[in-house]
């Protein structure tokens, strides 16, 4: 979509809708209590005024706009803690405009943007730029992650205090793990003084080496070099020891193996301020889906063995995994239409994360409310955000979706600028019908 056209049509999440709006006759999902009830939600001046069984057309203000959901689910808008947005520097892959449009269509109302852009988000001015661009061109909320180290160089602490004042929501070096333990220790010490959340992509880059997919039989059959699960576990283990030393707040951006889950479980049992996320891809796909060298399934970290996927789903169900992220990473055709080893990592995911997640619900692997919690209130709690909850006074960020509506993923219809979806032509059940940010409708399905 052309941006000038977009700007005319866009709805700003910053502005507040003054007409009260009610979603009624809905299956309300409360992610805090992991509970579902029939009822409605009333949003006034951009915030949730009331919700529950009493919200029916008869009890609403006369001038309110009423939307009958016909028994569809209504939940808080999703918060995606890990997405690559092309701005600044890779606008050919994605812009805030296209990413937030895809997000709105997927029910994501808050995007947490990765800082490993070009230039990286390591200066207050870049944070400011992103927030202004999001205000002017974004359809949903965008919160920038800022760098942990200057220039993502893994050597010197970034200006964490100034970046935080500028509006950085948390700190990360993107997919560049910090190799040097001494640097990581100081980064954690320094971040702790500012109560800043350290979001780390745990990977021992030396051990991962030139690997391009999960290490094991399948990689060997394909003749591809593998990445051992230990590359993730070793770095995560180091990080947790440093958390213990420094008292930092730590979030593992993406865990993908049972080894990592054991480390997280122990850290949590020890009372450390440690949380973790996994991606929708790692919950719903495994290494076998790579099949015939499908580069759209070349991800970082790589898709793992089915046993690992099952362990991740179990950990999501138990609450050990706090959050599910899209790991949205748009790549244009030229960087994907290459031999597997040479192709770029990454898949788009903002628009399909809920539908893909519902696969786990339909297969009975996880209750719906638990899935929603990992995409709403848990990220909100980790990041200290007021949204992501069904609560009086919370921002009116809501979605309506039919969990059973079947459809086939058609890349041409996806809103992201790039079409590298791993769910190309996949059958899904569950579709977002309406997305609301601060009480304003930013997406409605035809």
């Amino acid at each position: 979509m052309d941006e000038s056209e977009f700007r005319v049509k866009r709805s700003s999440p910053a502005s507040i809708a003054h007409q009260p709006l009610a979603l009624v006759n809905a299956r309300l999902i409360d992610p805090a209590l992991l509970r579902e009830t029939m009822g409605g939600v009333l949003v006034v001046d951009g915030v949730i005024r009331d919700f529950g069984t009493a919200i029916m057309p008869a009890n609403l203000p006369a001038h309110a706009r009423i939307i009958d959901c016909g028994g569809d689910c209504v939940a808080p808008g999703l918060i995606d803690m890990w997405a690559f947005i092309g701005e600044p520097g890779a606008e050919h892959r994605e812009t805030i405009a296209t990413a937030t449009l895809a997000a709105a269509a997927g029910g994501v109302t808050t995007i947490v943007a990765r800082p490993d852009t070009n230039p990286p988000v390591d200066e207050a001015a870049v944070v400011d730029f992103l927030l202004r661009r999001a205000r002017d061109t974004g359809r949903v909320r965008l919160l920038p992650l800022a760098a942990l180290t200057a220039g993502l160089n893994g050597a010197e602490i970034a200006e964490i205090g100034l970046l935080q004042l500028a509006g950085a929501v948390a700190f990360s070096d993107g997919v560049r793990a910090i190799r040097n333990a001494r640097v990581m220790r100081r980064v954690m010490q320094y971040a702790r003084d500012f109560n800043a959340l350290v979001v780390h992509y745990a990977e021992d880059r030396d051990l991962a080496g030139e690997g391009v997919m999960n290490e094991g039989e399948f990689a060997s059959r394909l003749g591809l070099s593998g990445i051992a699960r230990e590359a993730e576990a070793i770095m995560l283990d180091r990080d947790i020891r440093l958390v213990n030393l420094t008292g930092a707040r730590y979030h593992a951006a993406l865990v993908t193996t049972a080894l990592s889950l054991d480390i997280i479980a122990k850290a949590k049992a020890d009372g450390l301020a440690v949380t973790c996320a996994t991606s929708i891809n790692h919950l719903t796909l495994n290494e076998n889906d790579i099949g015939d060298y499908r580069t759209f399934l070349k991800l970082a970290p790589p898709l793992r063995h089915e046993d690992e996927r099952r362990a991740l789903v179990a950990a999501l169900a138990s609450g050990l995994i706090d959050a599910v992220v899209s790991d949205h990473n748009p790549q244009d055709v030229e960087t994907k239409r290459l031999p597997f080893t040479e192709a770029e990592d990454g898949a788009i995911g903002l628009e399909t994360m809920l539908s893909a997640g519902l696969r786990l619900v339909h297969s009975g692997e996880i209750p719906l409310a638990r899935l929603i919690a990992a995409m709403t209130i848990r990220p909100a709690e980790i990041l200290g955000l007021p949204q992501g909850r069904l609560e009086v006074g919370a921002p009116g960020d809501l979605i309506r979706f039919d969990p059973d509506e079947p459809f086939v993923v058609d890349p041409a219809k996806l809103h992201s600028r790039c079409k590298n979806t791993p769910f190309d032509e996949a059958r899904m059940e569950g579709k977002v019908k309406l997305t609301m940010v601060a009480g304003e409708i930013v997406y409605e399905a035809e």
Partner: protein
Amino acid sequence: MVNPAKEPAFPHRHLLGIEGLSAQDIGFLLDLAEAAIEVSRQVEKKRSTLRGRTLINLFFEASTRTQSSFELAGKRLGADVMNMSVATSSVKKGETLIDTAMTLNAMRPDIIVVRHAQAGAVHLLAKKVDCAVVNAGDGAHEHPTQALLDALTIRRNKGRIEGLTVVICGDILHSRVARSNILLLSALGARVRVAGPSTLLPPGIERMGVEVFRDMRAGLNGADIVMMLRLQRERMQGGYIPSAKEYFRFFGLDEAKLCYAKPDALVLHPGPINRGVEIDSAVADGPRSLIREQVEMGVAVRIAVLEALAQHLPNG
């Protein structure tokens, strides 16, 4: 005291640190320094306490104010003063230090004032020589005359040390000034705080009897004395803080932050100051700054220390 003449008022042969000094020892040196202030304020600045004695300033690390004030102190007491600045770059430090000590010892000095980049180096040297040794700073360990001059400055302006709340701010990790001050001020009954980013606080510092603050304003709240430290950027290979800009924003003393201290709070800095890094010029040059007075007190304290040690010199 049965016979005061036989009992030296200062019972130490060297001054290697504040550690090991009693509150009485410290009080004695401060009283002596108080009296020594007048020496430098007169037209005739010469005394004869150290006449015929040899004082060697042995500085393995560059210094302006400490070296020159020891030199003046020695000269005003009548000693012959020799300055030796030793480059450390091309020598193996341990070996050279002892060799140098032995060489100097053979020249029969009476007092050696030593500064060295390594903690413990002055103690090592003191074991190898026959004369009195004064520590003018060893690594990040101690700088006792700085702590004494700070205490003298505070005492003259506040009338006391006991009961004051003193906050030492900034680069505690690399600071020998901080360690000596913590020991001295605690010994005299002040409440000592340290404030700085975690990366510049030595691990376990809270067990040295200080209150630790990672937020500058919280640390300043209610303080009588604000003691700023120089950000020792030359010792910062490996990134302890992001940038001078961010450091100044959160830990630099400007008038806005100083408002959190008591209205009559006074500001000290051992110098040399980094303007716009750890301290704003408006504060450094402002009415609550004691920075220049500290320099004057530095000469008085060093006169006092040399006088106190002179009691123990042979035939003294």
